[in-house]
């Protein structure tokens, strides 16, 4: 970890004079900085932890997660990420990866689902769920998003997600669309993906989970959405609440064909 961080820091220092000298655009500079960091993306540590967690007997039932069905059948992990969120017959629900992990940890391992959902990000079993989601996403690296829309509930969740995306509220009148409803915009120097359609390979929905260099944290899609809502000045979204899953369906279906680079690295 220390070595990885040192590598990251060295990369940052190396790229800074480059930006000043060549007067490159901010986006070019950031892309170069990301490229240099890719050799030592600390997300790899979370991937390794996630894989270990998947295969280790844990919880009151002392079981592994290897029988967990992520949508492609029990134990099938490769390719599952780029088809989530999707409908699950056993729970009669459309679920994203984190919602599905809660289901599997409860049914297979005997964890209390309500306690898992109430655990803050970065703590206890929530940190484990994030690591598991990170590994699962990595098992679809290079694959293209293709969320199923065959089930009526999947189509309904897309429509609800679209409405949530455009829902303005709070003291600043923001919706998701305030920042992500137009192409080619940015906040300060941060480029904003237009999430109404496919923003491109490895951009937007196809770039999370991601390791955040600025705060040294591994962010799942649920945490990404949580912080979007914080900055939207909304109240606090429940972990895996329907509104977050519906937004995942909306963004994921719109991202059809985008190549997943998850787990990515971000500033």
């Amino acid at each position: 970890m220390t070595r990885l961080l040192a590598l990251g820091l060295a990369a940052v220092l190396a790229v800074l004079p480059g930006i000043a000298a060549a007067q490159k655009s901010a986006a070019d500079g950031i892309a170069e900085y990301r490229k240099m960091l890719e050799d030592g993306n600390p997300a790899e540590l979370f991937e390794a932890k996630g894989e270990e967690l998947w295969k280790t007997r844990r919880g009151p039932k002392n079981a592994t997660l290897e029988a967990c069905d992520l949508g492609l059948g029990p134990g099938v992990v490769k390719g599952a990420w780029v088809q989530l969120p999707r409908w699950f017959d056993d729970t009669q629900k459309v679920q994203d990866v984190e919602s599905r992990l809660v289901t599997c940890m409860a049914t297979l391992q005997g964890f209390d689902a309500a306690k898992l959902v109430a655990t803050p990000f970065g703590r206890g079993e929530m940190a484990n769920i994030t690591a598991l989601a990170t590994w699962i996403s990595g098992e679809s690296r290079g694959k293209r998003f293709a969320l199923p829309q065959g089930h009526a509930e999947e189509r309904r969740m897309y429509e609800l997600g679209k409405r949530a995306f455009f829902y303005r509220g709070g003291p600043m009148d923001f919706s998701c669309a305030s920042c992500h409803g137009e192409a080619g915009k940015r906040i300060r120097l941060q480029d904003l993906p237009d999430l109404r359609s496919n923003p491109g390979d490895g951009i937007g929905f196809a770039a999370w989970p991601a390791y955040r260099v600025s705060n040294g944290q591994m962010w799942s899609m649920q945490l990404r959405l949580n912080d979007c809502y914080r900055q939207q000045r909304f109240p606090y979204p429940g972990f895996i609440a329907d509104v977050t899953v519906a937004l995942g369906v909306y963004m994921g279906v719109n991202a059809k064909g985008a190549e997943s680079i998850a787990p990515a690295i971000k500033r």
Partner: protein
Amino acid sequence: MNRNLLITAVMAVLAASALGLAGCATGPSSAELDAQAVAMIRSGFRTEGIAKVERLVQDAVQQACSADHPPPEAQAKALEAQALASVRWPAGGQYLGDWREGEKLAQNGRGMTWTDASDRPTANGAQCYNCHQIDKAEISYGTIGPSLWNYGKLRGVKDPYDPASAAAVQYTWAKLWNSKAFNACSNMPRFGHMGLLNEEQMRHVMALLLDPKSPVNQ
């Protein structure tokens, strides 16, 4: 007993076929989905610190501007008129404060999140550079709003208190107080109307944009 079972079975078949029919139909109507979305949003959040669940309750502007298409022209015009009527003009006709304080506020993107301790205006920044270019010396600016470089100069404001400047000065105050007065679904927050900035803070931001001595107008 047998009869009861039979009735139960018949009812189950009827219920199943009703569900089946619903499944074969085109699904819920757009209006039904609208209602379901609102219920989903209302139940999906909890109060955290200053960010109360009441923030999910939409006013007329938020409700009209929550689709992938703008509201009908007549509705937009009515909302703009209401917004303009809501503007509270500054005490004593004092529109401008100190542009240096305005620059600090423009740089400050903090306020009103659940990690902020207070929702009083004095705890808030004005967020300007998040979305606008203002002073060209600041290269880290957003592009959701138009550039405000030379804002006052381009509008010919040489003396903000000259009657010739009144229209530009009053427009700017109204835009900051309630941005929806000129565009019902503007992306810009309503800084005065929603209590995000107080009058003194508004005057400082006004000075950054309109004071001929502000770096913005060089």
